[in-house]
């Protein structure tokens, strides 16, 4: 194998595991920020950490397969959450179609805005934060399973 002076060292690879935890901590801070309204500096740092963790998980070039396998659990959980989220919106819309038809027949006026659009579920920031939380939960689950689970 040719010598690559820029090849990641063992320490570089191990650092990725810590970066994910920093990302998770940043995401937790951002969730609390929804209620506590932290200082702008703290929010900015938390956003940086949260996005850094997600970015590391999505860039496999300098990571090893074990790290990728932990991240893939988080990615699967996040995609599953997005699908559940869209299914719930779908049911909201279906309910609106039925409700709207009934409302129009009764009063002659259709409701102007859908239930889904009025709900918290179409708030982009909260949705993204929720998906990020679920990614980190999936990663933490895989990490804990390997760390505390029974060895073969």
């Amino acid at each position, binding site marked *: 194998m040719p010598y690559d002076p820029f*090849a*990641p*060292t*063992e320490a570089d*690879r*191990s650092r*990725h*595991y810590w970066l994910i935890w920093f990302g998770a901590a940043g995401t937790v801070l951002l969730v609390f920020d929804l209620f506590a309204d932290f200082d702008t500096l703290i929010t900015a740092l938390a956003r940086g950490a949260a996005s850094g963790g997600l970015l590391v998980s999505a860039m496999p070039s300098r*990571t*090893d*397969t*074990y*790290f990728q*396998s932990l991240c893939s659990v988080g990615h699967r959980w996040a995609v599953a959450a997005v699908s559940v989220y869209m299914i719930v919106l779908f049911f909201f819309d279906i309910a609106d179609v039925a409700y709207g038809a009934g409302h129009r027949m009764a009063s002659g006026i259709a409701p102007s805005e859908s239930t889904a659009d009025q709900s918290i579920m179409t708030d982009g920031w909260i949705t993204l934060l929720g998906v990020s939380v679920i990614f980190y939960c999936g990663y933490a689950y895989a990490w804990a399973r*390997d760390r505390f*689970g029974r*060895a*073969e």
Partner: protein
Amino acid sequence: MKNRLRILRAEREWSQAELAMHLEVSRQAVNAIETGKHDPSLALAFRIARLFGMAIHEIFDDGL
């Protein structure tokens, strides 16, 4: 998957970090492979076999 990685590493008196350095993976990955929590990719299995001068099936046991 069961394997002899921990024994082979101990024979050479390497730490997990040293073995990880040879294999170009993280220490956490070596630990996960040693404890059977993670199955290495085919490329990594070849690297492990080449490092210890053995065949893959002499290191890894799929239990079949």
